[in-house]
């Protein structure tokens, strides 16, 4: 008898849990509820760069507004985002920094060779530790960090020309004042 009840109720319980999860998560990702990291300092990091053979830390970027773009050659959406980011990087004078997330050098290099390299500098996060500190959910993600090293903006997902025009450029203007 017990077995029967389990068979009857188990699917319902699993489904209810799933539904709850989806509901909670949807709130998290809607634009009304910003990421908890916004307004907080960018996590401390020290990472090698992809090409220039330097090691950069969060301190190195202080004193300027900059954009951090999390990408990987394995990420289909980054491919979609790439032209928009390239155009933005060409038109802006703030540094556009890439965070190459969980990517082998050969793959990242090939990807950048094929589609072009829009970044002023690329940080390599092979293990994904820094991405975890940053609360990265999935590539691509974009952060805007101000001159004091405070995260001012986070976008989960693909950058569009519309978002750049209506959100990113006004924000950069504001942060510079």
């Amino acid at each position, binding site marked *: 008898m017990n077995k029967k009840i389990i068979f009857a109720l188990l699917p319902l319980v699993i489904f209810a849990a799933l539904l709850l999860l989806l509901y909670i998560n*949807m709130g998290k990702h809607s*634009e009304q509820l910003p990421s908890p990291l916004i307004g907080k300092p960018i996590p401390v990091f020290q990472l090698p760069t992809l090409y220039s053979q330097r090691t950069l830390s969060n301190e190195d970027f202080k004193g300027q507004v900059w954009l951090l773009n999390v990408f990987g050659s394995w990420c*289909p*959406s980054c491919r979609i985002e790439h032209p928009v980011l390239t*155009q933005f990087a060409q038109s802006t004078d703030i540094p556009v920094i890439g965070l190459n997330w969980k990517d082998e050098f050969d793959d990242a290099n090939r990807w950048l060779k094929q589609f072009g390299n829009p970044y002023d500098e690329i940080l390599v996060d092979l293990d994904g530790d820094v991405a975890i500190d940053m609360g990265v959910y999935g590539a691509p993600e974009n952060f805007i960090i101000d001159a004091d090293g405070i995260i001012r903006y986070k976008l989960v997902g693909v950058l569009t020309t519309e978002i750049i025009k209506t959100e990113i450029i006004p924000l950069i203007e504001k942060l510079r004042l």
Partner: protein
Amino acid sequence: MLAAIGQFNLIIALMLSLLLAIIPMVGYARNNTALMHTGRPLAYALFLAVLSSFLILITLFIQQDFSVTYVWQHSSLELPLRYRITATWGAHEGSILMWITIQALWIAAVARFSGALNLNQLSRVLSILGLISVGFIAFILFTSNPFERTFPAPLDGRDLNPLLQDFGMIVHPPLLYFGYVGLSVAFALSVAALIGGKIDEHWIRWSKKWTNMAWAFLTMGIILGSWWAYYELGWGGWWFWDPVENASFLPWLAGTALIHVQAVSERKNAFRGWTVLLAITAFSLSVLGTFLVRSGSITSVHSFAADPTRGLFILGLLALFAGGALILFALRADKLRSTEAVNFNSKETLLLANSLIFIVATFTVLLGTIFPMIFEAIGQKISVGAPYFGLMFFLIMIPMALLLPLAGQVHWQKDVFTVACRSLWPYASLSIIMTALVWWSVDHINVRGIVCILGAFWVFTATTGHFLKNKKTAGFIGMTIAHWGVAFFLFGMAMVEHTDTEKDVLLKPGQNIHLNGYDFEFKGVQWVNKENYRAQQGQVLVSKNNQVITTLKPQKRHYPKQQNPMTEASIYPGFTKDIYVSLGEQINNQGAWAVRIYIKPFIRWMWFGGILMLLGAVVGLFSARIKRLEQRQINQMMKEELNLL
């Protein structure tokens, strides 16, 4: 004007689907034949209303009516006619309208081809399907109206995403939707049966046909999606475990489990509850897939239009459909108790094992897809990528490939496993020898690849041997073809995953490169003008032993409304390998380019395998045994009606 009519038709359709959801069900509850007879005409009327609305949207695209927001956003004056038509379902609003149209088509088809069901049963099924339609039509009217207007009308549109200006994208979404929506028929049957409190083999036999058909469409849709990603996204991958791809794969996996369990439950009174549960799961996963794509919960290549309100609405629909069905299931599960015992040593056990393997696979993929969400909900971060899926899937599919030939060999009811295993020995030895040959002749293949290839040979030889020895009915032929498909798929996947060659080279015009026995001569890049874009077109002469095989022309396409170029690969398809060339970027002013050359062995075998699977499902529809049983059922119903008179 036309747009207003389109919208009006949708409102009519909402009314009709409401009536369809209520009247036949009330008729069933009150045992009122007149009310129950309204089901069929309502279903046909619903189809006409939705279809006309869909045709109107297509017409708006053809006429370039930019006063309609949706048309303005996804079309432009330069867009060629064929892409203007397909732009109709190129984005969210239109694709939901297409979903509804296909749903209405399935409902009309159910109303038309339901001879084997009696009026009681048919009314319940149609009402459930009507209820599903109500949900989706309300969704489109309240959150995603494709007929919304812009004033004043812009002079030109924003153009269709160039990635979608392609044949693969024209046919991929409709087929996928046919599959998704088709599963709603099996779902509706299960729910209707739960309401009636009784599920017999007629039900299951009847729903099996529809499941097979839906599954075939889903298979085709997934193959086309994979094929499109392969040549259009420009870096030669064919499956990315992207959340949205997973979303289409989940119902397919659950559907596969369902088809195999139906084979048991249509024959004897066993696993009935399990069949019902799988049917509910399969369709719920289709709706979940839509949610994942549209809610913005997960970022992916497909989420062109994500919106939290829409997400919430679909989540509500999911809660209503799947939640309702599962509550009903919990209440009625004890009535579905199996009356016939199942022997452990029988085909039945192995088919049950199949469904368990596929359900485990379903939940593995589901967990991988939503795992980041679970962790996020408790405040931690994690990412799950292709390596997880690849390994887990590999492990789960080993028992599948191992047991498949045995399930073919073992008889229904009662058999002895050891005898069946003994008769499989020749095939096992043969496949080991063949695998050894492959290992010996192909360089750099790893253990995982070899295991897949062994699985492919094992499934192929045993299926073929079994086929040759037995009486060939349509059902049996269909099954054999589908299982051959499994073998072809495994082989192609193992080869392409583990033995492909990728090379990035810098080439000046006139320069040569040698790769895997082929010579590639780069002839330089020229500008060409095409229909609605200009392109830098490279020329690469491919030859083998000084014999020219083909000239490949990869392009960098420049669309007027897009800032950056699109990479269009050029592919020389072949039976045993594809040669794939795409342009990187221009390196200097002397015409040197970064060029990417791939050799993808046996990649087509994978898709061919998928096509065999779907053919198998289609051939299975012509089963004479099922027809005979159905005819008997119809005759019996006629007799009963005559007796009543």
